[in-house]
């Protein structure tokens, strides 16, 4: 088990280093960092001095090592646009994105699982067909279009719910939250639905597929033969066994929710990390771009790692497989 964890950790480190290399290449070779930092009136000597101070004259491998060491200490340098440390900018917007991501993850689970169970248990009913057709539309509609349609429907036509921003936020230490005020909660509804709709359809289809598989197995037939109630069979036995793969996918999807949040944030002008990254891409603010890249990669790799390890804990076959191939 320990060997398995160490091997997976090593893989994760290699992935992170590769991403760091891409981020470093961006920072170092796309545009000149010195030109980006100084004004037009800076003299050549001052530029040379800055170049020396930043260590841009050192050999490239040393520069890369320094970049990685700084990144590990969360030092990503200053933003070209705002002239303030990138990490402060990101820390400022991190809570907004996290609250949005978790709200939509909870939304997609709370609606997606019951819909999946229903469509699996009542395969031929007209409601199931409607759910399935709706899920196909949910997969086909681009996120931003869903957001625009929701804005058109609720704030514009019906005049309910805000269409942009986070509402009132409270500051709890370093964390700003919109979950404790009415306007904050109201502002969260539409963005969370927009972001969660795609995951919801995904989870619904997954639960349906898994449920249909499980319902065909012998132990379910046996449970029915023992005379257990439908309720006990469907929920006590079938659903329980469905949830392991569902939880895995849901965990892995959390990473893409955080990354995809940037589209929703742009539609609803939600002040999160994604909006910061988008503005950075538009203004070629490379320190923010590379920091965001590393952060998203870190979140992805960490979630993957946790899911893999949990899987190995739950399912011993994976451990044996892994050590057999090694």
């Amino acid at each position, binding site marked *: 088990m320990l060997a398995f964890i160490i091997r997976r950790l090593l893989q994760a480190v290699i*992935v992170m280093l590769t991403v760091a290399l891409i981020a470093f290449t961006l920072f170092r070779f796309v545009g000149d960092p010195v030109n980006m930092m100084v004004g037009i009136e800076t003299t050549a000597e001052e530029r040379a001095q800055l170049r020396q101070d930043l260590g841009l004259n050192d050999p490239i491998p040393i520069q890369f090592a320094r970049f990685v060491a700084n990144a590990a200490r969360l030092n990503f340098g200053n933003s070209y646009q705002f002239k303030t440390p990138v990490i402060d900018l990101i820390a400022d917007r991190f809570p907004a994105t996290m609250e949005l991501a978790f709200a939509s993850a909870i939304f997609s689970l709370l609606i997606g699982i019951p819909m999946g169970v229903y469509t699996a248990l009542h395969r031929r009913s007209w409601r199931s067909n409607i759910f399935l057709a709706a899920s196909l539309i949910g997969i086909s509609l*681009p996120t931003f279009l869903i957001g*625009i349609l929701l804005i058109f429907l609720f704030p514009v036509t019906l005049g309910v719910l805000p269409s942009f921003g986070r509402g009132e936020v409270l500051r709890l230490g370093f964390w700003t939250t919109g979950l404790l005020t009415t306007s904050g909660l109201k502002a969260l509804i539409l963005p969370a639905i927009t972001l969660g709709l795609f995951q919801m359809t995904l989870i619904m289809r997954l639960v349906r597929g898994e449920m249909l598989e499980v319902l065909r197995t012998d132990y379910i037939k046996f449970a029915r033969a023992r005379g257990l109630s439908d309720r006990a069979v469907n929920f006590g036995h079938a659903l329980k066994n469905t949830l392991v793969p569902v939880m895995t996918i849901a965990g892995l999807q959390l990473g893409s929710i955080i990354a*995809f949040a940037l589209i929703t944030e742009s539609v609803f002008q939600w002040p999160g990390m994604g909006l910061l990254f*988008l503005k950075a891409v538009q203004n070629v603010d490379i320190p923010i771009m590379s920091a965001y*890249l590393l952060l998203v*990669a870190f979140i992805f790799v960490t979630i993957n790692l946790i899911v893999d390890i949990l899987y190995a804990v739950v399912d011993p076959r994976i451990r044996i497989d892994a050590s057999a191939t090694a």
Partner: protein
Amino acid sequence: MTTAAETPPEVLMRRPSRLKAILDSDLIYSFLRSRVTIAAAIVTLVIVLGAVFAPYIAPKNPYDLTQISILDSNNPPIWMEGGQAPYVLGTDDQGRDVFSTILYGSRQSLAIGLMATVLAGILGISLGLIAGYAGGTTDAFIMRAADVQSTFPAILIAMLIDGTSRALFGEQRNEQIVFWVMVLSIGLSFWVQYARTVRGSTLVEKSKDYVLAARLIGIAPMKILFRHVLPNVVGPVLVIATINLALAIITEATLSFLGLGLPPTQPSLGTLIQIGQKYLFAGEWWIAIFPGITLAALVLAVNLLGDWLRDALNPKLR
């Protein structure tokens, strides 16, 4: 597999014509059986034809500044109060006919989507073939690169490539460059799935007798790969390509919507929706909603075609 030359003449005579063979095939049979698929094909065909023949169909040319009058801006569709004759679906903020702009916009969206899919396909198939056939370090290197890339959602990679191009070209990014940057950034973000699938099938094909025979008589590896192995692994690739076309169109629209794609002077469907979003609150919904419906219909139809193709080509489901 027998060719016509080897077949005895009496069998040849009883053979149905090629057209009949196509019409009798499983693919066409399952196509004609599914009403949803036929509807999807019709929708796709209508949008594609509209896009291809946009210059002949569109009542106005949205790129021709002499045909645009700012006085006609933000007109509602023709059936609403204030709607005017040539503008069936109304006009946008610059006085461009929404219907014509949708036709021209679909042209951009489809062109970028198709080219990006082809690029991703060529890249992914080649890398998959090489990885599967060469094995060893080459295989490990290509597949680890695929692993790293699949750590990121495609849209992020596309955004990153787009941002890099901004830094490299500076402000002189003209429309021609933007078009190819979009193709490149979307194409480069979708190759992984092709590579994985093709590598898997190549591993199976490589140990078959025909490959061994080809190697024995000394055919060059590249020729074996592309002339002999490729035709045998291309089936599942078609399905991926269809689904990826829908994804590429969505990605292009999203990038354009985020202001990273095609500029308002040469809009795609995504750009049009972005322009229209600003006027949604003023009640001028038609600028965003009609391109939105077109985009949704196109993506849904292509997805349905992909679903059908997957089921029809999968012998397990028959």
